[in-house]
């Protein structure tokens, strides 16, 4: 049985929360450099640097394998403010046991709003990765694991072999997440095991959880118990889980340190990259997923970013600028437009008030979704006026 770990690395260019109506037409800096720099530096110190170092040791010692996706917005901020993080990722990729996934460059919702822009971003991400890290593999992951049939078709057109998806009932129906499946156009699908993933990502430090405290040994036991009838178990989560979302004082890094030994001890599991899973596991069935499914919130759909009218109105406005931006031929403007597409900006507009809403507060620069709306709207207005669109 193959155990596949994938980590999402992402940071958005957060907007300048002081952008006011009087800045429209005059102020061109949409992004809060000092906030973005301070978040990137903090997360690098808490997570990227120490966890990369730890993984490098584990890979050397235990032949551990895993995969990363690194968004272009994260990569360019690393380059700008903490270039040593790029070096430490490079060291991981150079082991040959760490896979870099393909994705849409700006962690956007383009797959939902513009397939042309989506394909442009996937190609752009490949170019950028080649420049700063290495070429990504032929496995694709979409923003927050957003998946539906049309994305698989577009991914196939882009010559990619497989993609990750959420292992929820709306994707799998009655089927087990512990196999590889196939979508339209023969694209292979790796479903996320959301229970095992969320045990680490969300529940690890929850003292009220019956599984608390989660040790590597306990976790490996749980995994082993589900290896019957399993080809693979896919644990996909935010990389910031290690040291940032869960601070190192929670024991999360100790957990990771001990995990390879615990897995090794079971003798029934081996670490594998997504490519190795796809190459070795036969797809068990063909899945039809007409409506978008994601890994976000309990709803696992698009409601996190497009659940209310503020979100939908601004997303429509943003994507309505596509032809004006692209016909302008201004590389800087195009890049700014893409940075505005980063899904986090729409996440901050969510008005969900339950536990999901609390999660949305993380890294959120705004005092309320309505504050976020006003700022984002002013910035989009400025951009539209600039484009005369």
């Amino acid at each position: 049985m193959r155990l596949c770990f994938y980590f999402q690395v992402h940071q958005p260019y957060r907007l300048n929360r002081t952008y006011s109506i009087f800045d429209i037409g005059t102020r061109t800096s949409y992004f809060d450099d000092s906030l973005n720099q301070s978040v990137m530096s903090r997360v690098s110190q808490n997570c990227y640097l120490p966890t990369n170092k730890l993984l490098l040791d584990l890979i050397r010692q235990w032949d551990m394998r895993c995969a990363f996706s690194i968004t272009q917005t994260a990569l360019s901020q690393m380059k700008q403010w903490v270039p040593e993080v790029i070096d430490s990722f490079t060291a991981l990729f150079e082991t040959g046991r760490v896979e870099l996934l393909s994705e849409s460059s700006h962690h956007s919702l383009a797959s939902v709003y513009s397939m042309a822009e989506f394909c442009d971003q996937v190609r752009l991400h490949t170019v950028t990765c080649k420049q700063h890290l290495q070429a990504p593999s032929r496995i694709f992951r979409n923003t927050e694991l957003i998946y539906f049939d049309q994305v698989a078709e577009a991914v196939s057109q882009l010559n990619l072999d497989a993609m990750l998806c959420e292992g929820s009932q709306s994707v799998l129906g009655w089927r087990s997440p512990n196999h590889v499946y196939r979508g339209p156009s023969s694209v292979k699908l790796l479903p996320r095991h959301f229970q095992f993933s969320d045990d680490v990502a969300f529940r690890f430090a929850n003292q009220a959880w019956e599984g608390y405290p989660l040790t590597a040994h306990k976790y490996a036991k749980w995994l082993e118990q589900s290896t019957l009838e399993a080809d693979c178990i896919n644990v996909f989560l935010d990389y910031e889980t290690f040291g940032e979302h869960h601070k190192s004082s929670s024991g999360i890094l100790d957990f990771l340190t001990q995990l390879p030994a615990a897995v090794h001890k079971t003798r029934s599991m081996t670490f594998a990259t997504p490519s190795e899973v796809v190459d070795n596991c036969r797809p068990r069935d063909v899945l039809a997923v007409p409506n978008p499914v994601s890994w976000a919130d309990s709803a696992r759909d698009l409601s996190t970013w497009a659940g209310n009218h503020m979100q939908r109105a601004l997303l429509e406005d943003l994507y309505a600028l596509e032809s004006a931006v692209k016909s302008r031929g201004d590389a800087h403007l195009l890049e700014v437009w893409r940075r505005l597409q980063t899904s986090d900006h729409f996440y901050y507009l969510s008005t969900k008030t339950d536990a999901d809403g609390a999660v949305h507060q993380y890294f959120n620069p705004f005092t309320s979704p309505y504050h976020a709306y006003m700022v984002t709207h002013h910035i989009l207005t400025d951009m539209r006026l600039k484009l005369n669109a």
Partner: protein
Amino acid sequence: MRILELGWEFPPQKSGGLGTACEGICRGLLRLGHDVTFFMPSAPERDDIALVGANSIHQDNPTDGSLTPYSIASSLLPYHSETSYQDTPHPFEGGYGASLFEEVQRFASVAAQFARKGAFDVIHAHDWMTFPAASAIRHLAQVPIAAHVHSLEIDRAPQGANQTIMDMEKQGLQAADAIICVSGRTKSMVIDQYGIESKKIHVAHNAAFPVTRPRKKHPWGSDKLVVYLGRITHQKGPETFVLAAAQLLQYMQDVQFIMAGDGDLLRPMIERVTDARLQRHFHFTGFLKDNHASDLLAMADLYVLPSVSEPFGIAPLEAMLHGVPVIVTNQAGVVEVMPSAPRVDHWDVVGLSDWMQRILTNDDLANELVRSGAKDLTAVSWDHTAETISQILQNLA
């Protein structure tokens, strides 16, 4: 005359027209040579005008002809630990928070203590928050009271008026020796609502400070800019504004609407505007500081005051002074000093939309409205308001 003004807000610390009006009145009374002391819960720092905060007082003698700083020590300290009790000044928050009633009562007792030390000829109390304080002072010192009504509870909350506030309003108005209302509209509401005899009620219309700011260009090129500026609450009629905007956008596209301000209906208005997908023509700013409000008026092509119930409404005067034509509702007291401004009923969405279209598409009409409005305003100034008030106070003292 030595006048003790009792107030709740003073610029830059304010939430609406009350603070602006208090400043205009005080400056006017000072210019008339009166000795004015403005007493409020927590005074903002001002270089030009000294104010008295109930929360911090190192008292000294009032100097003649100016507003004088005081501070008051009080033993009534909520939310304080035993240890900090002795040295911390009295924590008045001002504003209209959860502890408002408690603060109103405490303000009354501190004000009474304060007034006993000074010798005042007359007390001029602004709105219900200060009426208990006026009564407390009169109880001790037999000074006559003029109660100034800037707004009534039934203006602010026509459907959910707070009975405690209405009781305080009624008691304060009954006890006052004279009542000054900001409009004839408010005067008749005071009579209807509280059955107070008309002969002790006077009207002193509000005014606005002169504007020297030049017109500013806005970023929407040749589009027209229509501005709503005020708290976004039911009283101010934001729904009518949004509905009229939606209606107008069916007929013309080269127009931008700006809803400036904050309030409990800001969120529902944003949701409404985005639900109707009007957002490319409709902008929200949140609360604006005075200089930004003025910037906005300097860019506007039309100002709309869609109020459901407005005792006066200073903002349309300010808009006029910025050279901007205005549309007001019949339910606003300001119409009494702007006879030439176009007006509609607050529920008349179609009427409002029609007027907006007429003004925005006809520059001659817009210019004529600015001219005739300016003529209306020649008789309106804070000095003039202060003279009226001064006369009323003099008759009491």
